[in-house]
């Protein structure tokens, strides 16, 4: 840990250099050293059983969201982070500057729901929500403010185990860098002393073993209150590290120009953004080209100037112009038609009447098949979209339940026995159910109905859910084995709440 202060300082400097405000993934060098040094420590202090890769996606996502906002590519960082742990030396260039590859655990509970709006729904409900209030911003200054509060919160932290976010390997990984991140921001000395305290105290809770992570002060935030609930929430939180593959997709596709960078080209992102062309854009392009005297005479620069489209780079125009020229002078050069030429259909003359008719018929048949395929693809796509929507919806319902469950636990342990809690629960459950009804009617997928109704009546950390046919979406099912420790509060409550 001694190395930490030094690391933090340097990292912090780098951080400031980066320019926090929503910077794109750039080619800033990664902080290599921290990871090297802290990695072993992480292992040592880890008592985590990584077998529970439950998604805290919620937290992480929110975390990464915040960071992502700054870096604008949570996925990049997440994958880079992981990857960095694999081969610290190799992927340096890809790493986000903010991601120091430290492997020390920590949860940087940046609850701020990702500005990019990525995984908001997967956040462990209470925790993230409450935290988001305190966070509010996604810029560094916000962090700094936070660090100021940390000393105050220290005691609270100690009593609690890390945010329920911790746990899965990757979470820890994310937490690692987040901790570093945070570490860089906050005061070294205060943190160091507190960390050791935290380490000692972390064995206490009934939370997952991962709780032994060193928790950065800032994470305390609304910690105390939620600590006990975190475990319960844990199962509720879902999703893993942000996958956001091409998270660099900054603008939406609806716009004419969408600069899409790929994670793999984090460094070269600026150099080679992928543009998504539209017919309108192309028309403007053709206009400009014609004005300049045709595709041969037009130059990319000239076309770019004439088009006057924002965000369009000369690189885009250049490649598009090239394609355009090819298309014009070799109108039949499509691959498909080239291949088609292999067939006998191609070899006939205009005088061959029979073949002419044959060809037409063949083409009609081909069209027929193509149309059908397209139809089916559309249908399939719509179905897939609806399925995912439904999954998302169920997830939300889950989290709502979780939240309500957590809130209750929050009140006091006696509230579990409180009969007044039951009616409210029942009330909460029934509106949820009624909400499910219309959606049930909407979607014709009957196999989902029994599942949904069960979901509505169960608590988030409820085991019955695991037994249902919810293979993919429901966190409790997946996290069941790992949450056994933390299940003590919910089970007694279940019988009372169940309708």
């Amino acid at each position, binding site marked *: 840990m001694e190395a930490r202060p030094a690391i933090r300082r340097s990292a912090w400097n780098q951080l400031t250099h980066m320019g926090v405000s929503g910077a794109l993934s750039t080619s800033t060098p990664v902080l290599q050293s921290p990871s090297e040094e802290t990695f072993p420590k992480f292992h040592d202090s880890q008592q985590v*059983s990584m077998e529970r*890769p439950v998604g805290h996606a919620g937290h992480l996502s929110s975390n990464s969201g915040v960071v992502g906002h700054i870096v604008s590519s949570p996925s990049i960082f997440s994958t880079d982070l992981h990857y960095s742990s694999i081969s610290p030396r190799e992927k340096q260039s890809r790493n986000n500057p903010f991601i120091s590859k430290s492997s020390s655990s920590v949860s940087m509970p940046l609850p701020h729901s990702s500005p990019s709006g990525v995984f908001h729904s997967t956040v462990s409900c209470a925790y993230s929500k409450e935290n988001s209030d305190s966070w509010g911003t996604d810029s560094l200054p916000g962090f700094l403010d936070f660090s100021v509060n940390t000393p105050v919160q220290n005691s609270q932290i100690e009593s609690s185990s890390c945010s329920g976010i911790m746990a899965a390997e990757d979470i820890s990984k994310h937490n690692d860098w987040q901790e570093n991140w945070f570490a860089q921001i906050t005061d070294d000395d205060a943190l160091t002393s507190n960390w050791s305290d935290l380490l000692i105290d972390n064995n206490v809770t009934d939370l997952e073993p991962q709780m032994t992570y060193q928790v950065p002060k800032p994470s305390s935030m609304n910690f105390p209150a939620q600590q006990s609930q975190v475990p319960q929430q844990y199962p509720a939180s*879902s999703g893993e590290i942000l996958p956001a*593959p091409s998270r660099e997709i900054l603008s939406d596709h609806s716009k004419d120009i969408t600069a899409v960078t790929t994670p793999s080209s984090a460094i070269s992102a600026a150099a080679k953004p992928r543009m998504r*062309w539209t017919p309108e854009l192309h028309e403007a392009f053709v206009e400009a080209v014609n004005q300049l005297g045709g595709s041969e005479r037009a130059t990319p620069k000239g076309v770019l100037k004439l088009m006057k489209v924002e965000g369009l780079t000369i690189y885009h125009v250049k490649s598009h112009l090239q*394609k355009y020229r090819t298309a014009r002078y070799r109108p039949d050069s499509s691959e498909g038609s080239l291949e088609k030429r292999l067939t006998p259909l191609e070899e006939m003359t205009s005088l061959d009447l029979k073949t002419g008719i044959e060809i037409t018929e063949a083409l009609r048949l081909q*069209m027929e098949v193509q149309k059908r395929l397209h139809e089916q693809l559309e249908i399939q796509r719509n179905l897939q979209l609806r399925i995912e929507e439904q999954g998302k919806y169920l997830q939300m319902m889950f989290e709502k339940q979780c939240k309500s469950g957590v809130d209750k636990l929050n009140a006091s342990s006696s509230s579990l026995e409180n009969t007044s809690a039951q009616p409210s629960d029942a009330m909460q459950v029934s509106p949820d159910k009624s909400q499910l009804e219309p959606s049930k009617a909407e979607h014709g997928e009957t196999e989902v109905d029994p599942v949904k109704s069960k979901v509505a009546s169960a608590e988030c950390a409820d085991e019955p859910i695991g037994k249902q046919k919810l293979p993919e979406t429901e966190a409790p099912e*997946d996290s069941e084995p790992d949450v056994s420790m933390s299940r003590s509060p919910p089970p007694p409550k279940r019988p009372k709440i169940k309708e």
Partner: protein
Amino acid sequence: MKFGKWLRQQMQETLPSWRDKFLSYDHLKKLVRLISAAPAVLTGKSGKAKAQFLYLLNNEIDKFNTFFMEREEDFIIRNEELQKRIKRVSDTWGPNGCHPSKIIYENEVRKLRKDIVDLHGEMVLLVNYSNVNYTGLAKILKKYDKQTGALLRLPFIQEILEQPFFTTDLISKLVKECEGTINAVFLMGEEEERNREVNEGTAVAAGDGIYRNTVVALLTLQEIRRTSSTYSHHSLPPINLPADFNLIQLVVQLNPPISIIL
């Protein structure tokens, strides 16, 4: 029929330059198996594996996106060129054009028809490409979640839904437009052909290329939707082709025939 097999079949029958642009489903499947088999005791190991998994997935998605957008751009250009060409042909050699010439006109129209049908086919195949890969990703994620107990699937899928390669609205729109254009083009010069001797129906010899690819695509679609070992509320219902649309007959007509284990 399992998805892996379907995918391989699609890849085999697809246009050659597309072959390596599909999802590396088998590879990812192996990785998932590795991850689940590895003792997830130490943070390092499973963390690394998972990181690698995510990394690969992201790479795949990038691959899809790049390829998809490139093709899309290409189609936009070609579509526009075809429209221009249709107009040109009609204006130059058509009955009302400046140099009406039956023979040239018919020739050109024939070429036009073929090209536009091919363009239509390629566009549809791109939509199919998008769909196949999406399905593959969904399945891989499902496997991953199942075997590692993770919860990667849902958020990841949400992300994927917004990726360029999945948002096929533009291409679909172009396809529909194309269909309209095709109808018009087929009407061009049709009267002339009708006057000729009508040939009795002959077997259509469709070789490699778009036609074959589309037939295969349809068939595999049908297969994928037919049964599922893990039928859940995430599975799609069986495909609903019109009764008179006999795919098997089409397959038989293809030469060489496609060997599909149904």
